[in-house]
């Protein structure tokens, strides 16, 4: 009991210094948490992938399309429940800065993605309107889209200005669902392409394949690819997760940089914290000697120093973690649709706490060793 009291008193002796150290810790823990969340957000697409969905694309690259008639061939493969076409549209809404994903999708698409929850009436209205579109909740909030709004998009792959009418807004089944996307009818795209740019007609970017049994994913993928072996457009089929991770992998260099930087901030704060503890211990050498002269052992002194360091680190960690949530929310709303999913995960919080405690413990290491080794005579002689 006395020990705890002593630790608290010691920590509060230099209120300014302790306060500053805590502020530094809060800033570091907070930015560490945000950076980890940014990295998580990158992987969000892969996390949201369902095991019973496969993506079939052209083996050359994603940019080379597949012919439309592949759809029926894929559907005939044993174990395939449904197939939907999807084309990346890459339209520009007002300004190239306003980026959000747009897909022209075939009829079965929304039954393959049950996590996109659309009210029945809105979905029926979408089906009836050839130029209809369904947008995600987050996208709707970012640009103020409401049901009935007309949205013009300037095509980059499919030239011209295209106008769509928002017929429905979908919500995600859980927080990990991407609700920043824009969907419209593939038929509308294709009919228009036929008249305006025949070379782009009847071409499919990717097929989303729903399979009956997730355990047979590898087998079904191979069967699909075997169908088109040695044809002009060979296919590559992989699980949705592998497909998404393929994207992330290509920007991995940036991810690694962000990871490294997020640990650098921990080192920066470690330097600050270690400095605080070193100064504190140097100033108290006389006291430590006195305590030793009174019969307290080195273990007691070490407990004092470790306790104080860990206490300060813990206070910083708690405040930092608590602040992470509102700051992450603010950051997500500022970034708009750039990060479709931006959630502080439990691992992030655990990692934040672990880093803070590691910093606290490491910072106390040298001062504690010094305090244990100090000879009573030298210590009493020291004047700080």
């Amino acid at each position, binding site marked *: 009991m006395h020990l705890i009291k002593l630790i608290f008193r010691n920590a509060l002796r230099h209120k*300014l*210094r302790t306060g*500053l*150290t805590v*502020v*530094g810790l809060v*800033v*570091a823990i907070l*930015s560490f948490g945000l*950076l980890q969340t940014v990295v998580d957000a990158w992987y969000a697409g892969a996390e949201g992938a369902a095991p019973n969905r496969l993506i079939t694309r052209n*083996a*050359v*690259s*994603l*940019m*080379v399309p597949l012919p439309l008639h592949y759809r029926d061939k894929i559907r005939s493969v044993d174990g395939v429940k449904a197939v939907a076409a999807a084309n990346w549209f*890459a339209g*520009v809404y007002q300004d*190239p800065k306003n980026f959000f994903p747009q897909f022209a999708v075939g009829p079965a698409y929304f039954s393959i993605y049950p996590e996109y929850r659309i009210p029945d009436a809105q979905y029926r209205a979408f089906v009836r309107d050839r130029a209809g579109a369904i947008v995600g909740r987050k996208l709707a909030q970012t640009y103020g889209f409401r049901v009935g709004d007309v949205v013009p998009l*300037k*095509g*980059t*792959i499919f*030239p011209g200005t295209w106008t769509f009418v928002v017929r429905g807004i979908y919500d995600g089944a859980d927080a990990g669902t991407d609700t920043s996307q824009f969907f419209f009818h593939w038929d509308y795209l294709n009919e228009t392409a036929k008249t305006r740019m025949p*070379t782009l007609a009847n071409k499919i970017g990717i097929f989303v394949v729903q399979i009956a049994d997730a355990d047979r994913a590898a087998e079904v993928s191979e069967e699909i690819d075997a169908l088109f072996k040695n044809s*002009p457009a*060979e296919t*590559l089929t992989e699980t949705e997760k592998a497909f998404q991770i*393929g*994207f992330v*992998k*290509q*920007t*991995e*260099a*940036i991810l690694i*940089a*962000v990871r490294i*930087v997020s640990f*650098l*901030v921990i*080192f*920066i*704060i470690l*330097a*600050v914290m*270690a*400095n*605080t503890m*070193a*100064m504190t211990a*140097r*100033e108290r050498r006389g006291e430590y000697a006195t305590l030793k002269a009174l019969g307290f052992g080195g273990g007691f002194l070490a407990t004092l120093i470790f306790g104080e360091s860990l206490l300060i680190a813990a206070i910083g960690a708690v405040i930092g973690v608590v602040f992470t949530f509102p700051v992450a929310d603010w950051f997500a709303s500022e970034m708009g649709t750039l990060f479709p999913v931006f959630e502080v995960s439990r691992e992030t919080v655990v990692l934040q706490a672990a880093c803070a405690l590691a910093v606290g413990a490491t910072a106390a290491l*040298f001062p504690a060793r010094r305090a244990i080794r100090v000879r009573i005579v030298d210590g009493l002689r020291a*004047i*700080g």
Partner: protein
Amino acid sequence: MVIPFRYSLRNLRARRLTTILTSGGMALVVFVFAAVQMLDTGLRQTLVATGQPDNILVTRRAAGTEISSAVDRVQAAIVEAQPEIATGPDARRILSKEAVVLITLPKRDSGVATNVTTRGIGPAGLALRPQVRIVEGRMFEFGTSQIIVGQSIARRFNGAGVGQQLRFGGREWTVVGVFAASGSAFDSEVWGDADQLMQAFRRQNYSSVVARLTEAGALDALAQRLDNDPRLTLDVKREREFYEEQSKLMSNFISYLGLTLSVIFSIGAMIGAMITMYAAVANRVGEIGTLRALGFRRAAVLWAFLFESIALGAVGGVVGVALASLMQFVQISTLNWQSFSELAFSFTLTPRIVISSFAFALVMGVIGGFLPAVRAARLNIIDAIRAI
């Protein structure tokens, strides 16, 4: 009367551990600050070096990238006939009709499937890019399935060495040469015959047309004529501008993220400096009193402590910039979001970055040391002398 600098410097030396820890924290911040700018500069230099000032690049209107662009043969022929396009010694136009396709290749070390830009060029394609030269093997022959690869590709991808074969578009392509493109984006490309590539990928259209102007100023007249031609739906840009735009998204991302991080991290480092300097003042109250009693003015004390803090920042700055300069040996390759293809670039250190990073370190020192220095200057002489 001024307190000699040596007084401040010796104080730093007297408490070595504290000095090292405080400057170390600052050095890390300066490192991040400098490294991010180096990355941004490297990216931009790579893409700017890709464009030649008197070259133009013609794409479909609003396409933005070569991948999503299409120029049909009739349109390409119309562009070729324009009087502003320069003529070479062989009496042909210096113009290359190009087909750009993205292919997926596995990286050598990690096996990660990566998008690689494959460019089919016309006979003038090499002459239009004086920065490109063959460093190994030879140029490919037109009309064959031969290709040459950029040196970043040769280094990082399987089957991309001279004499090896790459399979894409239903054919085996023989690599007959490796080219160096002096740090431009072409280093991350594969080049072949445009007509062969178009056959392999069953394409009817070119992706873009690259041409040399007779003089750099001829662009406006050309652009206006092409704009008014009802047969064309094309955009004409200087090659350099085109590639600058390609770097915008990534460059903005890097610089915003970097600036935000540097500012946040610097708060941590400045707090570190502040703690150190407050402690330095608190430990030396008696000393400060003595100095004042000897006749040194408040301003002199303020400067002595401020200088000590600036010196801390300077040490951090030197170490940080030195660490960052080591990053020049690191090359980074990533997906460029705008062109959707692999791009390799390196950290580039410029004198401007050195100066701005060092200035950043000094500013951290000033801000961190200012309040403690003010406290030192405002101490009462009598109280200060008594306090031991």
